[in-house]
C-alpha cells in the first residue's frame, strides 16, 4: 500500500479500518541468496538497498527480537556529516544526502528535520581545529559555516557565553544536519524491503554459523538451519558475541552510553548543540523534550544501563553551557550498548571466511550512518568490492597502520 495525503484522508473518513500490516511475517525458507543477520536500522537499510538498487533477490533479514528493538530505537536521533578525515567524511556526506531523499525513496515519513548542528568552540585552538574540519567538510561536498561569537549570540542567546574557563569563542555550524524519527527509520526501511520481496523474520536468533572448509554456508537459528550463499552480519552492539560463533576476535569493545530526555518544554533550542569543553550534546524533540547525552560510562558493559557518576557528569556539562536547563526535570534515561572500535571508526568489510561479511563498530555514531551503511554494505554484498566511500572501513586496517582515528586518542575504545 502506497501512502499518500489522499490515502490518509480516505482512511480518516472511513474510520481508519483499511490499514494493513506494514510488513509480512513469513516463515523462513530453507535457503536464501543473502541472509542479513540483525534487523536494526543498518540491516534493514542493507536489505532495502540490496533489493532496490543492486537488484538482489531472495533476501532474508533475521532478527533476534523485534525489528528496531536495538540501538535504532535507543539513540539521540542526530543526523550530521561533520567529520574531518578522508576515510569518514565522504561516507557521512553520502549518508546525509541519502537522508535528504529518504522519505521519498521509502514513501514513509521519517520526520527528517534539517534543523542544523552547532559545535561550540571554547579556545583559539579549538576554533582553528573547527575551521580545518569545516574545510574538510566543504571539500567532501557538505556544507559548513564557521560562526563568530556574535552570530552565535544571535542564534542561541541562552548559552553561557562568559564562563570563566570555557567562554564561547566560535562555532561550526552545519545547517543541513538535524534529527530524524529513529523508530520510523527502521519501520520505513522494513516496509520498503518487504515490498521488494525481502523476508523479515523476527524472533529468530542466530545461534551459530555453518562452516565447511573455511566457507560459511549458512546459519543455525532458533527456527532451524537456514542456508545462504552470502551471510551478512550487522548486529552492532553484539558484534563480538555473534562473530565469536564464527571464531573471530574483533577490534571492538562493548560499552554503555546513556541518553536522557527531559519533560516537554516550549520550543527553545533551535537545532542540535554540542558543548566543546565538556561532552554534552542536546536537541529538542518535536514533543518538546530535551534529548541529550554525553560520555560513555567508560567500562565494558552489555547492561543497557549505566551508573550515576556519568549522569552527574552529563548534567553538569549541560548546566555549564546552558544554565537555563537546570530547572527542567528528567523524564527518562536509558543506556545503549555500543560497538566501540579501536579507532572510533566502523567496519564494512569481508571477513577471512568466504561467504561471511561484517558490518559493525559504529561506536556512538551509527544512527546518522544508517543509509550509507546500508548502501555500502549492499554494494559489498552484491559486487564483492568495497564502495568507494567505505573503502577505508576495513577490518585489517590496524595491522596495515591505516587507522581512521578522528579524535587521535589511539587504541583506547572508551575514549573515542
Amino acid at each position, binding site marked *: 500500500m502506497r501512502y499518500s495525503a489522499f490515502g490518509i484522508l480516505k482512511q480518516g473518513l472511513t474510520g481508519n479500518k483499511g490499514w494493513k500490516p506494514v510488513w509480512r511475517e513469513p516463515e523462513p525458507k530453507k535457503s536464501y541468496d543473502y541472509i542479513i543477520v540483525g534487523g536494526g536500522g543498518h540491516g534493514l537499510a542493507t536489505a532495502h538497498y540490496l533489493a532496490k538498487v543492486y537488484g538482489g533477490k531472495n533476501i532474508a533479514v533475521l532478527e533476534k527480537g523485534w525489528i528496531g528493538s536495538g540501538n535504532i530505537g535507543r539513540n539521540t536521533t542526530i543526523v550530521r556529516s561533520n567529520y574531518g578525515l578522508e576515510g569518514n567524511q565522504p561516507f557521512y556526506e553520502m549518508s546525509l544526502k541519502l537522508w535528504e531523499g529518504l522519505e521519498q525513496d521509502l514513501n514513509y515519513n521519517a520526520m527528517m528535520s534539517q534543523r542544523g548542528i552547532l559545535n561550540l568552540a571554547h579556545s583559539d585552538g579549538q576554533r582553528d581545529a573547527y575551521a580545518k574540519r569545516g574545510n574538510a567538510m566543504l571539500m567532501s561536498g557538505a556544507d559548513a559555516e564557521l560562526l563568530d561569537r556574535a552570530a552565535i549570540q544571535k542564534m542561541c542567546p541562552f548559552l553561557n557565553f562568559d564562563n570563566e574557563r570555557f567562554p564561547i569563542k566560535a562555532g561550526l555550524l552545519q545547517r543541513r544536519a538535524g534529527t530524524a524519527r529513529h523508530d520510523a527509520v527502521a519501520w520505513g526501511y522494513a516496509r520498503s524491503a518487504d515490498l521488494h520481496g525481502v523476508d523479515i523474520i523476527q524472533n529468530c536468533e542466530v545461534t551459530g554459523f555453518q562452516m565447511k572448509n573455511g566457507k560459511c554456508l549458512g546459519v543455525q537459528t532458533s527456527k532451524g538451519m537456514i542456508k545462504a550463499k552470502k551471510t551478512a552480519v550487522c548486529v552492532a552492539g553484539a558484534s563480538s558475541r555473534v562473530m565469536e560463533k564464527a571464531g573471530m576476535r574483533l577490534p571492538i569493545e562493548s560499552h554503555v552510553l546513556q541518553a536522557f530526555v527531559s519533560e516537554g518544554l516550549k520550543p527553545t533550542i533551535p537545532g542540535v548543540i554540542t558543548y566543546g569543553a565538556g561532552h554534552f550534546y542536546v536537541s529538542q524533540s518535536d514533543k518538546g523534550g530535551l534529548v541529550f547525552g554525553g560520555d560513555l560510562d567508560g*567500562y*565494558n558493559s*552489555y547492561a543497557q544501563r549505566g551508573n550515576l557518576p556519568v549522569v552527574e557528569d552529563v548534567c553538569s556539562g549541560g548546566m555549564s553551557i546552558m544554565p537555563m536547563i537546570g530547572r527542567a526535570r528528567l523524564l527518562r534515561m536509558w543506556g545503549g550498548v555500543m560497538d566501540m572500535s579501536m579507532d572510533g571508526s566502523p567496519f564494512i568489510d569481508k571477513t577471512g571466511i568466504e561467504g561471511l561479511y561484517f558490518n559493525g563498530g559504529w561506536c556512538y555514531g551509527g544512527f546518522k550512518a544508517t543509509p550509507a551503511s546500508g548502501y555500502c554494505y549492499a554494494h559489498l554484498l552484491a559486487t564483492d568490492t568495497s564502495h568507494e566511500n567505505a573503502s577505508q572501513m576495513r577490518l585489517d586496517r590496524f595491522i596495515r597502520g591505516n587507522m581512521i582515528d578522528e579524535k587521535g586518542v589511539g587504541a583506547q575504545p572508551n575514549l573515542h
Partner: protein
Amino acid sequence: MIINHPLLGPRDANEFIHLGDESMIDRPDGMGEHAAKEFHEYLYLRDNPAGKYRELWYHEAGDRSWLVVTRDTVTHEIFNVELARDVARSRGRSK
C-alpha cells in the same frame, strides 16, 4: 559501582580509570619472530565477553595502584579485586 580495593577497602568506582582487558599485562616480546602479529592482537583484538570479564582499573584518585577486577559485564557485579602486581608476579614476572 563499588570496587573493593585489596589495600584500601571499598571505594567508589568514580575514583578509578578503566583501561581494559587484563590480557594487557602480558605484553608480547617486541624482538620475537612474530612480534608484528602478536602486537596487533595484543593492542587491537579483544574477546569482549558478555559475562565474567577480567579487566585493569587504575586507582587514579587514590593510591595509584593498578588492579585486576573480575566483573560481570551484564550485571556490573564485581566478584574479585586483586593487585595487578600480584597477578603479574603469580605469572612469573619480577614486578
